């Protein structure tokens, strides 16, 4: 187990390092001068030069890459061109919206997908199965941001049950959760559809195993067999997909936050693109990628703890 963990951890570091290099190099080859953009087109060459020096942009690329990399350990992510404040502060303000949003939509996705997938598997080939599969087909095809707009149309415009957008802050947690509910449902639907399909097919495989027949012969109830034995054994393929879905959810927040006017990381990154606030783009893409890579690492480790087979694979 220790050897597996070490190997996997080294792979994690190598991936992160490579990703940081990609993000840095890609921004490096970009046409356009951040200092010029930040100072404005009318700025004198001297003031642009002074700004470039202040931002450290006149240092050699290798030195700047090391500073960029080191920043992630010291929390110094650079200075935003547009807001004139440290990027770390912007991230700290917005993470408490984006992370709970992603987590809530994952919870919603799992709460829908696991029962739906297990239900479809136990009714394989019958109308219940066809209905669930048809609904997942629709769920995968609906763009999450359009589903979000439809939710606003129904629950805010027509029924007036929810605000159409915005975020009241965490001082009243219930109000905050209420503001995140519609966006989380919108984001969770397509993930729930994918997860329900995976759950169904994993459960179908397990249902054919001998021990399920034994459990039936022992007279266990269907509910007990499905939730106790089938789900537990289907968890490995399910957890792999859940790990991958975290990546989609983090990326999905970028779009959904712009539907619901939530001031999270997604809105920050789109604003940064509009302002060509390159330092912010660089830091956010790296941060989101690091989160995704880290979650996949944790899923691998959790899987290895449940099932010893992949360690040797």
């Amino acid at each position: 187990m220790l050897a597996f963990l070490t190997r996997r951890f080294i792979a994690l570091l190598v991936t992160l390092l490579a990703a940081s290099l990609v993000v840095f190099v890609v921004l490096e080859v970009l046409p356009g001068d951040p200092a010029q953009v930040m100072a404005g087109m009318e700025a004198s060459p001297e003031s642009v030069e002074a700004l470039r020096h202040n931002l450290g942009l006149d240092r050699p690329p290798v030195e700047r890459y090391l500073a960029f990399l080191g920043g992630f350990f010291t929390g110094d992510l650079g200075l935003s061109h547009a807001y004139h404040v440290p990027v770390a502060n912007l991230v700290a303000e917005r993470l408490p919206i984006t992370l709970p949003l992603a987590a809530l939509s994952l919870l919603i996705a799992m709460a829908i997908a696991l029962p739906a997938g297990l239900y479809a598997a136990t009714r394989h080939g019958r109308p219940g199965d066809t209905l669930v599969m048809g609904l997942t087909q629709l769920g995968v095809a609906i763009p999450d941001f359009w589903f979000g707009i439809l939710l606003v149309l129904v629950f805010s415009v027509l029924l007036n049950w929810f605000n159409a957008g915005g975020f009241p802050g965490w001082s009243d947690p219930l109000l905050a959760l209420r503001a995140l509910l519609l966006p989380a449902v919108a984001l969770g639907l397509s993930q729930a559809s994918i997860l329900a399909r995976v759950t169904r097919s994993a459960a179908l495989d397990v249902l054919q195993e001998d021990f399920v027949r034994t459990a039936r012969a022992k007279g266990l109830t269907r509910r007990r067999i499905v939730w106790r034995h089938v789900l537990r054994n289907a968890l490995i393929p399910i957890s792999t997909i859940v790990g991958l879905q975290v990546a989609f959810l983090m990326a999905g927040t970028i779009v959904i936050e712009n539907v619901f006017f939530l001031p999270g990381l997604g809105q920050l990154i789109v604003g940064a693109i509009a302002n060509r606030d390159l330092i912010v783009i660089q830091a956010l893409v790296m941060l989101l990628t690091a989160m995704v890579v880290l979650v996949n690492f944790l899923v691998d480790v959790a899987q290895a703890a449940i099932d010893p087979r992949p360690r040797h694979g």
Partner: protein
Amino acid sequence: MLAPNFWRRALASRSFVIGGGLTLLVVAVALLSQVWTPWAPDDQFIPNKLKAPTAAHWLGTDHYGRDVLSRIMVGAGNSLLVGLVAIGLGLSLGVVLGALAATWRGWMDEALSRLGDLIFAFPAVLSAVLIAGLLGPGPVNAIIAIGIFNIPVFARVTRNAALQSWSRDYVRAAVALGRSPVAITLRHVMPNIASLLIVQATIQFALAILAEAALSFLGIGVQPPAASWGRMLNDSLTYMYVQPGLALYPGLAILLAVLGLNLLGDGLRDLLDPRLRRRRG
């Protein structure tokens, strides 16, 4: 490549018929929009803005008084074009890289696999946002952004399927006969995996349309005044309180296009991969 009774079986497959029908419909609308739309899609007539559907404007008008149906028709063309070129880019580069990895294996396979892992580490929308952020907004950059993410997808499918082909007896026989790896790949390996690539391309096409819509929604993809479904939905955020239809029709168009391609992909997979059909049935 096609079995003799392919079309008979295809017409009996519900997924294939519905998916193929929807896809044909979207393609037909996109083609038609190149020569005819009910109104000129970019013509503004402010006094006529935000009108509900009428006999003259079947789906009503937007905030500039432009005909919504005409813009949805033109949007179909833009959406399909971005998706098609992006998938073409991903497919052509991915297949070459995947075939190289399967043919030469060793360090090249290892290096390409790790590179693929690295690209997979960036969520698709995120990498698209990064690339569009760097290159500036616009359809060409959206194509590049979506295309790049598709390269490792096709490379992986090609590599895995080609590796299986290389272990078949008749391919080994061709090796023993002294055929060059390139000739073997083109003659024996590629025809074997073509159906798999067609299925994957159909599904990736659907994902590309979703990605293009998301990018345009964020203002990074197709730029106004050109019509795009994602952009129309973004505009609807402001105007759906007056005219809810603005939030409905472009989304329905995306749904039909994506659903059609997904069903078509499912149908093709069942038709082209008999093993899967038996297991599913």
